[in-house]
């Protein structure tokens, strides 16, 4: 943790407790501007850029969810692709039943949450690395089962129905907007979740599980809730993924690559922060775009950086930045005492 500022008293003579430093106010303004720009993007920037942005949002969604699982609830999952795939196929299934694919997105998220609930009862019997590999078994099993269902395309896959009435540019625009909305919902949702009581509970579990338990925290329930939320988030990511792709097949939607990307991005950006997965995703996309011609080298380099960061700078890039400069764009903790800004006392005096 960074050095706490020395305690200062508020006007009632009590030690002041605040949620943010001045930088958070600036963030809000900056964020609003960004939101407006990104919403208008399909009409402002070329189509390839919009598509890249869309893929970026999908990665941010998955990384934010993985970070919630690992950085806050302490569960290293290498099987979140199970819910990406299940979300994708839930969307496909509902679209085959005649629903508008875009409408199915929240339903796909709910479906994943529902499936995740009984899965936790199996998974939570294991700890540590065994838990991790078990998540992978779940993902593998989900992929294999879906692969046997012929109506969903079986092992070879099929295309998403319900989009033929739209022109290619309309599809692209709506896919982009849908993905952008989901990303916005997921990131702001996570932000408010971590600022809530559950967020405090999670932080206490992360810091010292035994102490948290003896303080009355229901550790297992909290973890269960987080797992279900992460499943829903990844399900939504899978849904928009399916809509954005012309062809849906199990090896793609359930690909281990999603797990690797989620993990590397969060580690490099910074575990346990909201900004981390976003920063990590930005770096990832820059790397991927630059090295696009070189096969899988971007993944090798990214993986090596992630390993190096885990060993030498475990707080990630954003974590290191935050420690050095004491700034937080999306604060989820509390400041006790002074902040760096002049305090504005009610009545207008400073």
């Amino acid at each position, binding site marked *: 943790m960074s050095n706490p500022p020395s305690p200062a008293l508020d006007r009632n003579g009590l030690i002041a407790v605040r949620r943010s430093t001045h930088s958070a106010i600036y963030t809000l303004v900056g964020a609003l501007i960004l939101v407006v720009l990104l919403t208008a993007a399909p009409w402002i920037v070329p189509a390839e850029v919009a598509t890249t942005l869309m893929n970026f949002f999908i990665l941010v969604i998955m990384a934010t969810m993985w970070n919630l699982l690992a950085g806050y609830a302490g569960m290293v999952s290498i099987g979140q692709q199970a819910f990406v795939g299940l979300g994708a196929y839930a969307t496909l299934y509902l679209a085959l039943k005649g629903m508008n694919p875009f409408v199915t997105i929240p339903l796909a998220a709910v479906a994943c949450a529902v499936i995740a609930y009984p899965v936790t009862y199996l998974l939570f019997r294991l700890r540590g690395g065994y838990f991790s590999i078990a998540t*992978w078994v779940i993902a593998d099993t989900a992929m294999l089962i879906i692969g046997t269902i012929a109506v969903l395309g079986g092992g070879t896959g099929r295309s998403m129905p319900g989009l033929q009435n739209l022109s290619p540019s309309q599809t692209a625009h709506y896919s982009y907007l849908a993905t952008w909305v989901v990303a916005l919902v997921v990131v702001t949702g996570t932000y408010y979740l971590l600022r809530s009581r559950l967020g405090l509970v999670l932080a206490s579990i992360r810091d010292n599980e035994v102490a948290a338990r003896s303080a009355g925290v229901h550790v297992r329930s909290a973890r269960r809730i987080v797992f279900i939320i992460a499943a829903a988030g990844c399900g939504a990511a899978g849904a928009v993924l399916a809509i954005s792709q012309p062809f849906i097949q199990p090896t793609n939607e359930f690909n281990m690559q999603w797990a690797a990307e989620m993990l590397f991005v969060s580690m490099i950006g910074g575990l346990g922060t909201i900004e981390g997965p976003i920063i990590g995703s930005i770096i990832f996309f820059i790397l991927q775009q630059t090295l696009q011609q070189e096969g899988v080298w971007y993944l090798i380099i990214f993986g090596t950086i992630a390993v190096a960061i885990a*060993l030498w700078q475990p707080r990630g890039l954003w974590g290191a930045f935050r420690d050095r400069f004491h700034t937080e764009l999306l604060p989820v903790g509390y400041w006790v005492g002074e902040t760096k800004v002049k305090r504005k006392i009610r009545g207008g005096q400073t």
Partner: protein
Amino acid sequence: MIWLNVIVQGVLLGGFYALFACGLSLMFGVLKVINLAHGDMAVVAAYVAVFLTPHLHIPGVWSFLVVVPLFGLIGYVVQRTLIQKSIDRDPFTTLLVTFGLSVVIENLLLEAYTANGQTVNIGSLIAKSWHPASIIYISYVSLAVLAAAVLVLVLLQLFLSYTGTGRLIRAVADDREAAQLSGANYRHIFGIAAAIAFATVALAGIAYGMMTQFAPTSGGINLLFAFEAVVIGGIGSLWGTLVGGVALGVAQQFGAHLNPQYQVLAGNLLFLVVLAVRPQGLFGKKTALS
């Protein structure tokens, strides 16, 4: 009668899974580490065998004599450097680092060798088999692998039970601090355990390469099977791993018999059932359970 062959094939496959898994089991028992790159080590060993065989002018079937000790050495070095560093941080970091390594290794192999299948050339031996009954078919290679697995497990058990270093390994696994207080350099012991794990998995990798085609991603799927074998048999028990491997192999063969698509799925389902009904496995101690 056909079911008998299914069981026989399952047992043979189980021997291979046990060989693959014993290193995983050892590393978890002693270092308390799950090496997510364990499977990839096997594949790298197979590639090394394929690469070295023409240079060393030895028949492929003997390549393990060079590669296995080499990987033992590599295991010791990797443990004393990378793995120890991540253990010193926390178990979390170890998972992330080994997963990262796994992805990096797989993709490096993909770049170097492409996704095409390779085999360790053992000449005509691959086709030879024994037919004790008209529908029971036991390939020499699979039988040799099963024999090797049992031999390795026996030697390992003897080593752990009756030698001084073996006792130290068990002591470190029981209580690392108490072992230090008895004069053990636990980092060195970790290194030895890792060396054994890498050596056995290298042997398993070469065996795999002899039995079938392998590709850069083969490590991953076999890690999954090794893990399932350990959990089914019981975490913390070497012989449990053999039983678990056989159970997994038999389940997979039954699934494959119904429909080739169901092979891996059948194994996964057995794993999930064991997890639901008897999470400590058939012979396990409860160390990895919550």
